């Protein structure tokens, strides 16, 4: 796509520049961890490794999507049939949006303009305007859509269809399903590399990860991991894939070149959500049973810290904010 200077873009650029300059120097990325069994979100200051705030979010919060500019975090609330909009400065819920039956997977566009919510009862993905919080479109996908990930160029949305054992690729210009690829049994969480060429989806029932080449939507490899792989994240310049094994209390580390498991790291009990710090080295894992977060250093492949959060930490999605 040719780059054109457009007045809207430059206005945005100026705003970002101002926001950047006015931010205090000590401000560090925050991790937003949903605690499903106590209706809250823990805010971790990743610089100190401490929970600096706990935000009340009703409706059994599960999925998390941090807006790219860091101003908001969207949290799916299955029991409230929708999602909550959290203002990260005020650290409180500023809006609640009702979507439909059962919301879990949630993602936000790379430009922050749209929110995507999967509904595992309705078998749809709802597209919501992040400004007006109005529904733009509902897209029919496979059965029980779960994890969602937007391509870095903001052109595609990938959806793991849990019951259909497939991943759908949605065109974000036309908001239609372009293609669907078969994967392992019960795909759940997924991630995409920085170039948007490969997605890695964790298959809960077949205990493996399917690597899908996005251009052709063809599965190119299956990598065996441990019991009940739940979600995935990439680190160290996309050279390492980390996968939570929920039933094993561990994280599998896969070399993305050889597509072999090179390490198995013990974390807390029932690890679920996993996401990489903007430093591309530290990986945060939410342990549902232990109600804490393990921090892994992907270089030394060790847990370097454990942070107490709240009851039933899930943090399913891109929970690393700014």
């Amino acid at each position: 796509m040719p780059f054109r200077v457009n007045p809207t873009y430059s206005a945005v650029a100026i705003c970002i520049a101002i926001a950047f300059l006015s931010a205090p120097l000590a401000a560090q990325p925050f991790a937003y961890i949903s605690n499903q069994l106590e209706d809250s979100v823990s805010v971790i200051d990743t610089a100190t490794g401490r929970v600096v705030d706990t935000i009340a979010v009703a409706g059994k919060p599960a999925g998390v999507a941090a807006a790219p500019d860091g101003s908001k975090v969207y949290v799916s609330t299955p029991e409230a049939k929708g999602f909550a909009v959290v203002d990260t400065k005020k650290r409180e819920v500023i809006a609640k949006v009702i979507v439909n039956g059962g919301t879990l997977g949630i993602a936000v566009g790379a430009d922050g303009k749209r929110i995507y919510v999967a509904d595992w009862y309705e078998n749809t993905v709802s597209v919501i305007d992040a400004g007006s919080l109005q529904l733009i479109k509902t897209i029919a996908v496979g059965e029980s859509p779960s994890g969602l990930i937007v391509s870095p160029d903001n052109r595609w949305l990938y959806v793991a269809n849990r019951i259909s054992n497939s991943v759908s690729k949605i065109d974000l210009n036309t908001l239609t399903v372009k293609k669907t690829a078969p994967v392992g049994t019960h795909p759940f969480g997924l991630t995409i590399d920085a170039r948007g060429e490969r997605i890695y989806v964790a298959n809960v029932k077949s205990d493996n990860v399917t690597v899908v080449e996005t251009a052709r939507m063809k599965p190119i490899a299956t990598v065996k991991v441990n019991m009940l792989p739940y979600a995935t994240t990439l680190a160290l310049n996309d050279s390492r894939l980390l996968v939570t094994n929920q039933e094993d209390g561990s994280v599998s580390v896969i070399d993305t070149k050889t597509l072999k498991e090179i390490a198995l790291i013990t974390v807390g009990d029932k690890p679920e959500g996993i996401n990489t710090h903007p430093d591309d080295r530290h990986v945060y894992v939410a342990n549902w049973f232990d109600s804490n977060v393990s921090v892994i250093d992907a270089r030394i492949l060790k847990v370097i810290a454990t942070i107490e959060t709240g009851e039933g930490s899930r943090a399913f999605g891109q929970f690393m904010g700014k």
Partner: protein
Amino acid sequence: MKKIALFVSVLLLFFTSIASAHGPVRQKAAEKITINAPAEKVWALIKDFGDMSWHPEIFNTTIQGGNTKGAIRVLTLKDGGTITEELKKYDDKKMSYAYKITEMSSSKTITHAGAEEKVPALPVNDYAASIELTEKGGSTEVVWKAGYYRAYMNNNPPEEMNEEAANTAVKAVLETGLIHLKALAEK
């Protein structure tokens, strides 16, 4: 007056349906007990996946496979119900193992929302548990944990198959088991 009553009942109905119209949320339970006996002695009582006679509610246990991943045991309860479990993890050194329920008989059939529903022996779904011993200066700490869903996976569960029923039943299983284990080990 009638109008107000009607309005109130409609409103109530509305609230009830909102409160329960959602997918199930995974539940958890954990029970801990300290036993005044060495860990090896306690471990000896529970280490065989194929022998759950240490639990007072279990009438007998049959097993296929030994203490290795993939072993299947069938627990027959004192009331005649059966629970089939698969060993998922076994660590003799750490004195721990983890397993999952794969099948259950039903304790009764109820009618709910116009359909017959079988209430499983333990009113849960997708149940995974682990038990671990830790040596604490001559005595033993036993932690038994479980993660599960309520038995009814659709919206609006009947009371026999809701979260409360699941939590109450699981807590009872863990508690009575640990109390009995303590009694056996401290004998």
